[in-house]
């Protein structure tokens, strides 16, 4: 059991780790807006996050969260299967044994810490009190360390154990024919096993069934469409209705303390940094060339929603302001109370033909909760960087 579950985790966990580290880069560490800000050597090589394919962040973040959730039953079963180890006596046979057991703190503490903080964060339950990004990022590195150590020390044991039994035979063995495992040198096998109440294939089916259940109940958050109706227990399985503005909201106008009068006819967008700084009213923006693009908003919590956005291309605004090829653009919101009241966009994110200052969604004006009078929508960037209630864009050389 231990080796089969270990094998499954050996294949799947690297995907969760990799997508997590990629998402750190999606936040733009070169523009100093990835959290945590200072990570030393603890990161993948930095690169400019691309805007194509448009579903890139939806894929990496969705995979990170959904796979992480689906693996919870597998990790619990793995911990269950090595339970006898906790109570071995004496606690260490040798110095080597003591050190190895100490190293298990990294992998066990690491994986459970990552799962618990991740689960709470996607449900907006911030009971832990500390900064989620900092804790989840450095916790991941402690886990990675423990994982690499554990795999390098236990890989031979796993291979030996996997070879000792034929999967095909086990899948044909019923409960009545299930015999206890012969005693092993690692002490995982019970000394006096009770009568089996489930076969090995039954136990594997139980774990797989648990994962399948979690997958069905969560994947709809990311996939969207009808699948969203199946995401019954997570925040983003909810329906807002069937109108053009009835899709997932990540921060309400009330929470952002947006004064509705500031979004009225008096609202102006200021474009700075170029040779011709200017302010534009909403009718002026609507009179400019409009572009429509179907793009997803994908959030760090793993959910996403694809909508049809219409507005002015950011590259047209850059040209208008007199800086046709900016190195970056700093977008500020009327929302000044949160961390994400501003965001920087890379050059490729400003110049992408589908990168918009959106004024409409699905053919109608944006609702106040979706960022009226104007919001940013750029392919493949984290949802929190698609700034709502935009007040100014500063193009930077």
């Amino acid at each position, binding site marked *: 059991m231990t080796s089969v579950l270990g094998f499954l985790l050996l294949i799947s966990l690297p995907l969760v780790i990799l997508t997590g580290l990629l998402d750190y880069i999606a936040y733009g560490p070169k523009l100093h807006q990835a959290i945590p800000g200072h990570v030393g050597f603890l990161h993948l090589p930095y690169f400019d996050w691309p805007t194509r394919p448009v579903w890139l962040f939806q894929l990496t973040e969705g995979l990170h969260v959904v796979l992480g959730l689906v693996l919870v039953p597998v990790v619990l079963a793995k911990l269950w299967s090595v339970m006898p180890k906790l109570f071995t006596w004496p606690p260490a046979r040798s110095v080597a044994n003591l050190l190895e057991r100490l190293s298990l703190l990294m992998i066990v503490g690491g994986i459970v810490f990552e799962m618990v903080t991740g689960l709470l964060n996607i449900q907006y339950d*911030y009971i832990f*009190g500390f900064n989620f990004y*900092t804790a989840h990022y450095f916790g991941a590195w402690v886990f990675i360390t*423990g994982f690499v150590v554990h795999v390098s*020390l236990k890989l031979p044991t796993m291979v030996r154990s996997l070879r000792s039994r034929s999967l095909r035979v086990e899948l044909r063995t019923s409960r009545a024919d299930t015999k206890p495992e012969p005693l092993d040198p690692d002490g995982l096998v019970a000394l006096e096993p009770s009568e089996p109440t489930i076969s090995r294939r039954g136990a594997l089916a139980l774990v797989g069934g648990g994962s399948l259940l979690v997958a069905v109940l969560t994947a709809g958050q990311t996939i969207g469409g009808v699948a969203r109706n199946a995401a019954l*227990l*997570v925040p983003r399985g*909810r329906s807002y209705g069937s109108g053009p503005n009835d899709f997932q909201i990540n921060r*309400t106008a009330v929470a952002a303390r947006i004064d509705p009068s500031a979004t009225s006819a008096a609202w102006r967008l200021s474009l700075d940094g170029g040779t011709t700084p200017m302010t534009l009213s909403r009718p002026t923006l609507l009179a400019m060339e409009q572009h429509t693009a179907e793009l997803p908003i994908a959030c760090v919590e793993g959910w996403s929603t694809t909508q049809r956005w219409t507005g002015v291309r950011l590259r047209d605004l850059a040209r208008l302001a007199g800086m046709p090829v900016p190195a970056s653009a700093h977008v500020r919101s009327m929302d000044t109370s949160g961390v994400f009241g501003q965001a920087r966009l890379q050059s490729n994110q400003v110049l992408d033909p589908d990168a918009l200052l959106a004024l409409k969604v699905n053919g109608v004006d944006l609702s106040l909760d979706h960022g009226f009078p104007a919001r940013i929508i750029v392919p493949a960037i984290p949802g929190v960087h698609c700034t709502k209630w935009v007040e100014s864009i500063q193009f930077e050389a």
Partner: protein
Amino acid sequence: MRVVVNRVKAQYGAHPVQLIILLGSFALVGYIVSVMGAKQLWNSRVWWQSILVWFLGAVVLHDLVIFPFYAIANRSLVAGWQAVTGRLPDRKPRLSPVNYLRVPALASGLLFAMFFPGIIRQGAAAYRRATGLTQAPFLDRWLLITATLFAVSALVYAIRSAWMGRQERRGRGPSSETVAAGEPL
């Protein structure tokens, strides 16, 4: 070289490479903590909202909280079943219901463990600020899913039990003796 390795093995308890890997990993964890800033590990105002406390809590969460909970529940179930069938040996059912209770209970427990914040409405204010909605539906949904899981399990149990009864009457099915301890999943 081999002599040296064997001597280390005898004294230390494992191949020297194991020692190198472990010491390297401890150093790396030291580096991780140092980059993060050791200060961040501890919250001096609310001690239990410290990263260190949650990390150490995570180490023991499964082994000292979750495991004892489900192990005791499972032992009680199996022992309770044996006590009941021991007292009424002539009315022993063909098929043990143990797994038909364990599976839906485990599934429901798993869902609660993963999604309890919505179910018990923890973090209601942050949830409302983010989504503009309340967590009202989650408790009912979880209860309905649980009810469905147990209902499906009961249905499968009834069908299999009836099928085994038919096989037995025809005289070619498995005897009740072999299946009483558990069902052949």
